């Protein structure tokens, strides 16, 4: 029993709070989440150099966890998806979207279909999809759930589980592709960037599965910063963070997101996402 007491004492010694003035950020790329720490530590180094404060990357698994970390001030800056950004800015007053990827101003979702459906690429979703099986990506993904559900409701005037015989949530874009390719689900909705990357790398058999419809464009991923950043890190800190992001031009850093560049963004751009999320009952 003695070692229990000794270990408990050691534990108490180590149980001290982390330094308070480190600037922390988190990011979840929409594809390839391997070696997160290694890749984003480089981004942290870049920001550290530009901002003159200690910068640390906090790896998180889900957008829900990212929003919670942001709300609890465990991270001050986050690379959010469209919906998670809106959730976060609602929970943290004065926080604001400061930059988005060049690709995010006009993001799209592809509807994909297994070859057995014999559906072809068209200007709108064919009526024939009714009664087929369908899978979204993760439940809180903007491109894998929110916007595709919105356009489905617009097209058919019904909830997805009334349109389709079966509705699943694959949990991830890559999985949506895998499940539709295997014919487990006949249809799926997938982030266009993930699909394009998978096709380019030959990771998907386009004889088995193909795009049948592309949604209109909508805003997606963005950097969101807490409102009290200037107060805590010095006057003009927010502007310096934004400048550092907009001027990031090293492809090795940008590839982690993966984006070609960052462009300015503001909260108002995401109003459409907020409206749709409220309409679908994902926000209140």
């Amino acid at each position, binding site marked *: 029993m003695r070692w229990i007491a000794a270990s408990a004492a050691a534990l108490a010694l180590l149980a001290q709070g982390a330094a308070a003035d480190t600037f922390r950020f988190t990011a979840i790329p929409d594809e390839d989440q391997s070696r997160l720490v290694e890749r984003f530590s480089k981004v942290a180094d870049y920001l550290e150099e530009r901002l003159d404060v200690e910068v640390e990357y906090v790896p998180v698994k889900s957008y829900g966890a990212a929003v919670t*970390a942001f709300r609890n001030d465990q991270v001050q800056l986050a690379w959010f998806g469209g919906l998670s950004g809106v959730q976060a800015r609602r929970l943290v007053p004065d926080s604001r979207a400061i930059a988005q990827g060049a690709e995010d101003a006009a993001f799209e979702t592809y509807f994909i279909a297994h070859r057995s459906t014999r559906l072809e690429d068209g200007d709108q979703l064919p009526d024939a999809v009714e009664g087929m099986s369908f899978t979204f990506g993760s439940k809180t993904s903007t491109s894998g759930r929110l916007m595709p559900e919105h356009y489905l409701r617009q097209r058919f005037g019904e909830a997805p589980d009334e349109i389709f015989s079966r509705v699943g949530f694959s*949990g991830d874009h890559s999985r949506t592709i895998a499940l539709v390719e295997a014919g487990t689900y006949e249809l799926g909705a997938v982030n266009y960037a993930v699909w394009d990357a998978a096709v380019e790398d030959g990771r998907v058999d386009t004889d088995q599965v193909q795009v049948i419809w592309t949604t209109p464009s909508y805003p997606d991923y963005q950097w969101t910063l807490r409102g009290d950043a200037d107060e805590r890190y010095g006057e003009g800190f927010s502007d310096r963070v934004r400048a550092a992001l907009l001027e990031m031009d090293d492809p090795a850093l940008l590839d982690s997101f993966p984006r070609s560049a960052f462009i300015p963004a503001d909260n108002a751009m995401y109003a459409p996402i907020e409206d749709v999320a409220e309409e679908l009952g994902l926000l209140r």
Partner: protein
Amino acid sequence: MSDAALPRRPAWLAGRATGPRLARHTLTLIALALLLAPLADLSVVTRDPWTELGRMLQGLAWPDFASVESPFHALGLTVSVALWGTLAGVVLGFPLALLFARSRLVRAGCAFVRAIHELFWALLFLQVFGLSALTALAALAIPYAGIFAKVFAEILEQTPRAPADALPPGVGRLSRFLYAELPLAWTQLAAYIRYRFECGLRASVLLGFVGLPTLGFQLETAFREGRYPEAGALLWCFYLLIATLPWWSHRRLVPLLLVGGVFLLGPWPAVDGGLLWRFVSQDLWPAPLLAGDGAGLVDWFASIPELAPAIGNTLLLALLGTVGALLVAMALWPLASRHFGHPASRLAGRGLLVLLRSTPELMLAFVFLLLLGPSLLPAWLALALHNGALIAFLVARHADGLEPGMPGLPASGRLAYELLPRVYPSLLALLYYRAEVILRETAILGMLGVATLGYYIDENFQYLMFDTAAFLLLVTAGLNIAVDALSRRLRPREVPQEDPCLR
């Protein structure tokens, strides 16, 4: 109920002896499952799963260890979380065990904390402590405290009374416990802690699925994104960890592991009382209730997903999973027992059991999802195989401790007339204990679109609607407590109590 009122049973099913009674239980369970199975959606849709399954097998056969980011840190953290979480559970659970028999409040509290899955505890603590070791430890320690309290109380209850009675009058309660009760129960307590530690390892991996940086963090991401060589490497790491458990978790190594674990678990977060208070006093309660808005509260209730189908699905899946686990356990335990086969077949059998019980259900479910299409079926098979293999492992260990009394019987006779009758009561007892666990595990198969209670809980955590999630957690906990009470009533009483791990 008098025997005369019952319909006549065939002779082999009649009577109050253990054998026929257990046979009746088993047959009733199977009949109930068969009767209710048509209510479940069990359709099979397959087209061409073989490409994806091929990729998976390839990943498992040729794992890519180099692609894993800091595997030793993840492994170390998995072990540390399990070790410290179990230890904290023991420290919290032990005092409760002493009060367990006397206090209804303690019993109810323990039943409640046990009834919520480790993953959901983690999701709750995540809101307050963030992604830190504190979240991980609390998520293990709290439900384990409830389990330890119950099991320790049962073990202590069975320690012989004689030494305590022999003490002179006036000896304090504490001295009596330390000198006359603890030494007698120590071996059993230690064996149970050891078994719980293996459960802790699996739970520790699972915690990675919600974002704590244990082995499960990278495993889930790699698997989800189809990077199977990396997922394969991580799975092999975990299989090896479980298979070599008896060697590296030696009594003398534990203090070393504990101290090493402390360094891996840090840095510790500063606990923010404000966050904790906000979460407990606001986030968990429906906003209209806090505002005293009666009409709003009615709307709030209307926004909760329909409970009846969710409860129905949860119970149905749990029943099917339990019966499936029974069949799987019956089929698999002889493979790993010393009474059957030869060394090579036993090694293969044990390997198979490690594989099945260590692969997270979520992954088994995904494989079956590809093979069989979306329905309740993949969830059923995943639950049955995982839990069946776990029971088979424990039953095989139990059987290994038995000496056959009729030497010279062929293997089939040894199984049918000698060993099965002797291990069956404990197999069934284990199954009833496991039924409660299966009920909790139905929660994490929401990916298949099987709308169980857990599916909605997970969904509401993702939508950050903690009040709804908390409400559904209460419903789940109530359901679990009811099933636990039922299974306790049905559990065979004749189970030899020498092995506390059979619970």
